[in-house]
């Protein structure tokens, strides 16, 4: 009996442990090791902190880093602002029959790869794109405008890419909100704003936080959208890492950047949890 249990446990735990060690722990240990190594011109290796030092010495590195962090937070907030009314509409306003259909509409863009999704936006926004075409036809513009390759286009793309990951937790948390709470608040004299901030948001906080964590991490680690839709000046920190690994072939520097990004995302998620008074356990549930 107990023998069986032990074997069962072993059987199920092995793949999990293998996955954890082989794909998460080992690569990170190796990256960590690499990040402290300096390769001299003669090809010898030394243990140094110089990879981290160069991050702080070179403004382009840490400026990109700060930019990426701030824009990721902005993208997360914007996604929340768009997703909250959408989720509210899906759960509380739409008739039950149309709910599934609306969720499908949200899900549909995610059936194609991110590359195709971003390309869709590029077709719309570029100088010779659909929107310019119509604005010219309607006489609103007399010269085509380049709407791509700037921060606004990049943020638009990132918010669009993140929507699903905010809408899904919000829909599930709003479904558990009793309609009569909203009606009771309305009956007791509350206006729309008060209902949103005193009833809906407090109830939805666990969903908001878990959605925000996912969106923030995905945005911070995104490479494709900033690369394709952002301009020459909208550098994303992942692009810096890519450059170090692929372009400069400086794996040690790249590893150090990778670790800094990991620290950044952990730090900001921790801060977000603290500020919203949530715990990771509560949010994951």
């Amino acid at each position, binding site marked *: 009996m107990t023998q069986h249990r032990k074997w069962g446990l072993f059987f199920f735990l092995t793949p999990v442990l293998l996955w954890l060690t082989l794909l998460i722990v080992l690569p990170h240990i190796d990256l960590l090791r690499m990040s402290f190594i300096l390769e001299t011109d003669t090809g010898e290796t030394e243990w140094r902190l110089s990879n981290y030092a160069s991050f702080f010495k070179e403004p382009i590195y840490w400026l990109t880093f700060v930019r990426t962090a701030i824009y990721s937070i902005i993208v997360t907030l914007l996604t929340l602002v768009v997703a909250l009314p959408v989720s509210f509409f899906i759960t509380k306003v739409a008739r039950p029959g149309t709910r599934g259909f609306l969720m499908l509409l949200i899900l549909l863009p995610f059936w194609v790869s991110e590359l195709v999704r971003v390309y869709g936006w590029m077709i719309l926004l570029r100088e010779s794109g659909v929107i310019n075409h119509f604005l010219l036809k309607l006489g609103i513009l007399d010269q085509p405008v380049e709407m791509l390759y700037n921060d606004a286009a990049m943020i638009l793309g990132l918010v669009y890419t993140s929507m699903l990951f905010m809408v899904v937790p919000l829909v599930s948390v709003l479904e558990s909100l*009793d309609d*009569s*709470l909203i*009606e009771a608040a*309305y009956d007791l*004299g*509350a*206006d729309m704003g008060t209902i949103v901030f005193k009833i809906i948001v*407090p109830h939805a906080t666990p969903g908001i936080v878990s959605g925000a964590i996912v969106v923030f991490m995905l945005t911070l680690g995104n490479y494709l959208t900033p690369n394709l839709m952002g301009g020459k000046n909208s550098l994303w920190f992942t692009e810096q890492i890519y450059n170090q690994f692929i372009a400069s072939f400086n794996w040690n520097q790249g590893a150090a950047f990778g670790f800094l990004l990991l620290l950044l995302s952990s730090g900001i998620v921790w801060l977000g949890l603290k500020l919203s008074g949530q715990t990771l356990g509560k949010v994951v549930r």
Partner: protein
Amino acid sequence: MADDMQIDLGVEKVTKKFKDFTAVKAVSFEVEQGRFFSILGPSGCGKTTLLRMIAGLAEPDNGRITIRGLNMAGIPPNKRPANLVFQHLALFPMMNVADNIAFGLQRRGEKKATVFKKVSAILERVDLPGFEKKKIHELSGGQKQRVAIARCLVLEPAVLLLDEPLGALDLKLREQMKVELKKLQAKVGTTFVYITHDQSEALVMSDQVAVMNKGHFEQLDTPKNLYNRPATPFVARFVGDNNIWSGHIRDRDNNTCRFETPDGNVFHISGDQPWRNGAAVDLFLRPEAMIIQPDPAHTGLNRFEAHIRSLLFDGANSRIIATPKNSDRELLVALPQNRQHDDLCPGDIVEIGWDKSSGICFATETETSP
């Protein structure tokens, strides 16, 4: 009734349709200031729909609702001087007791000190002094009940609407809350409109009761009149228990008429009911209107002999099931627990008597579509 009595709530010919289903059909009534008004009806008869229209959470398709003389058409719930205690209370779980009660006051922009004072005063009123900091989930069912009522009462509404607020409580607590709610209403003097499917709640607490069925009012009267003089068969059946006996009217004169059942029982009923000779009627007879083994000296009674089928012991509400001789109709007869009938057993034959004024007749219902 005095003319200077203010009408707090007026409902005129209010109708509400959901697609082609009419949930509330041309309902009209008025409630005077300080009254405890109940709407009693089976589940699904449209009570909640009617109350939601008064609160402003639904718009009537037709008719007019006035509160203290003001037409409420187009006025949203947050601007109406009426507050609703929801069926499942709808207390805000993310707030403590004090914040729940202060919610409405804060929406009016009242000062912090005033809010604080009002909250503790109303908690005192509902017998929950010092409960300000409690979380909602720490309260018992009866305490939640009182917080929900306090949350509305603190706003001093012209009309307090209550949607089956005792429905979720267990029997003992419900009995207790019935009395407390009535006392509270008398104390604060607010006009209450209370809806329930429980006839005992409506009868015990109310000044006036409207019996509702399939979207319309069957009768609007005092609890006593509803019980003693039901206006329709539905009311007779819904308020209290009744035995129903079909038969025909014979030999009518000014004072009495005879009522004959197909199985050959003959009774006298009082002649103030408007039946022609030969009319087919249903006789409604309450279990508690029948006397087991009546005093032979008492002459004014209808008497018949019956077979006891079984004894249903239920404390003060004990009954026997009896069938009249040469009939197989089962009758419920109240069995007073005054030890007088302790020796009755199933199979016994007893005499049963009832006063002719306690039998009420309605024209036999031709079973139309349900």
